[in-house]
């Protein structure tokens, strides 16, 4: 009996705090359907009188969120593709082949990861200028793909090192070379690891702020949602419901993707502390 009361209390607290916890998102979405005048007069009532899509149309067309959205999608997907390819190939080589120099490479990379770094965004910006990529979306993608991706490499290496040797041997007997064994036989089994790395990198890049902020200082047409939002509130200071619509445009997609793929994401986070 005592146990049941305790359980009931736990659920009540978890639900009440849970609603408070995600209320900012509820507020954001409900405000995005209000008009600016009802937004001011409706007080704390979260329900809009009727659904207005005007804010979305205004944000999408007038405030150029369509462009920001497209930039965010292109930059995020390209970065995910590049990072997954790089870390998957590296993880396969490190996890399956005991090539000479392997230990040295691992040591150097891990050691370099721990050296203190200064304000690296300035050299990164200068580097893009030198490469002639400072006004191109590819420059942003390259900058976003930088880094050693140690976590992903470790995830891939650990996974590939557990693939039984017989799989590789039988592929070799069938005449498959190194690359075909990797691409046709081993890689398809790595789908869960790919999903984990992809969803994590997706969320990181989608949310990235400093890199696109600095790299698009002189090219507003390359801004991502996170950066575009800041310039939006700078320009239309009193358009609160437009702001809510813009915020919803950038947050709702990533929230939906997370809800569908959360198992992989949480496994990745949990793997990083182990």
């Amino acid at each position, binding site marked *: 009996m005592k146990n049941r009361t305790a*359980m009931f209390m736990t659920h009540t607290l978890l639900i009440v705090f849970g609603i408070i916890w995600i209320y900012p998102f509820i507020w954001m979405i409900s405000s995005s359907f209000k008009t600016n005048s009802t937004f001011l007069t409706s007080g704390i009532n979260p329900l809009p009188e009727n659904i207005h899509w005007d804010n979305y149309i205004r944000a999408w067309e007038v405030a150029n969120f369509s462009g920001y959205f497209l930039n965010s999608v292109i930059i995020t997907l390209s970065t995910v593709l590049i990072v997954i390819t790089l870390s998957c190939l*590296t993880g396969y080589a490190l996890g399956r082949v005991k*090539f000479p120099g392997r230990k040295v490479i691992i040591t150097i990379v891990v050691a*370099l990861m721990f050296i*203190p770094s*200064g304000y690296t965004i300035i050299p990164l910006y*200068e580097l893009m200028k030198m490469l002639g990529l400072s006004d191109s979306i590819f420059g942003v993608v390259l900058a976003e*793909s*930088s880094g050693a991706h140690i976590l992903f490499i470790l995830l891939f290496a650990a996974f590939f090192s557990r693939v039984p040797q017989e799989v590789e041997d039988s592929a070799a007997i069938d005449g498959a070379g190194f690359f075909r064994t990797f691409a046709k036989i081993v890689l398809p089994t790595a789908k869960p690891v790919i999903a984990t790395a992809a969803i994590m990198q997706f969320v990181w890049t989608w949310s990235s702020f400093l890199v696109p902020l600095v790299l698009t200082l002189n090219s507003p047409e390359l801004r991502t949602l996170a950066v575009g939002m800041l310039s939006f509130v700078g320009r239309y200071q009193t358009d609160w419901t437009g702001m809510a619509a813009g915020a919803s445009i950038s947050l709702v997609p990533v929230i939906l993707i997370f809800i569908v793929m959360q198992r992989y994401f949480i496994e990745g986070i949990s793997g990083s502390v182990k």
Partner: protein
Amino acid sequence: MAKKIKNGNGISKYNRNKYIWAYIFILPQIIVFFGFSLYPIVMSYVYSFYDWSGIGPLTNFVGLKNYSRILTESSFWNAFGNTFVYTAGFTVVSISIALILALVLNNPNLKGRGIYRTVYFLPVVTTMAIIGIVMQNIFGTQGFFNEFLKAIGLIDQSISWLSNPVLAMILLIIIGSWKEIGITMIYWLTGLQMIPREVYEAAKIDGAGSWQTLRYITLPLLKPIGATILLLTVVSSMRVFDLVKTLTEGGPYFATETLELYIYRFAFAPDGPSQVGFASAAGVILGLTVFIVSLILGWVVYKVSGQKRKPLGGGIK
């Protein structure tokens, strides 16, 4: 392995082929790593020894002048102090609340654990820069939070949360923690799930109550992973930028300006020409500070956990 002895020559050719492929596989990552990670790290030091506005060649070498100037700037020490206040507040709030949540959600008899976990994790996946702007609205003078407090009768007059230096910092810490608690909660849950079930069963047989089990069994066993969590939390919060930039812009009157924001202000949005050399020197000082703090906490991790656990490199042997 047996094949190797039987047919040494053929296999070694097979191996050499494999090695070449392995080098080809790691080459792209190595190029990206050296070009886009290592080069910027090295140059972030080099710039700090020059008086440079960011335009034109590096010509005016000034040695350690940028550093000596920084150390006498009170605005730098203000940002330095703010960074530590934020880090301390963030660490205490997020680690403790995350632990409570994890302990509650780890109960196997609790129905709907997955849904609760999703709800409390949700802020993690959202964009910090967008959250900052949304929160600036919610906590504005005419914002939702004031209206809400008025509606339930807690206050009569609106409070300007973001114009008060102390309130603004508290708000930064609370929102920053709220955003990241989900990650720390998953870390704690991972730690809790690594405790073998037999330990709890043994405690039950010995007649330990749930509070005693928590106090004498669960918490001590969480110490090693707790040290790692402390390290990760502190280091990640020392470079806070997105939230401060979008929620307070370091205001009011630099009361919430953290080091990353200070550096950004000198590098990209200065009152006058950019001072990239100066900003780079401040960046190096921040990097070294983070490094020293992580060395100290790394030592704590090592002491608490003995040599059994390593926070990194567990995947490759």
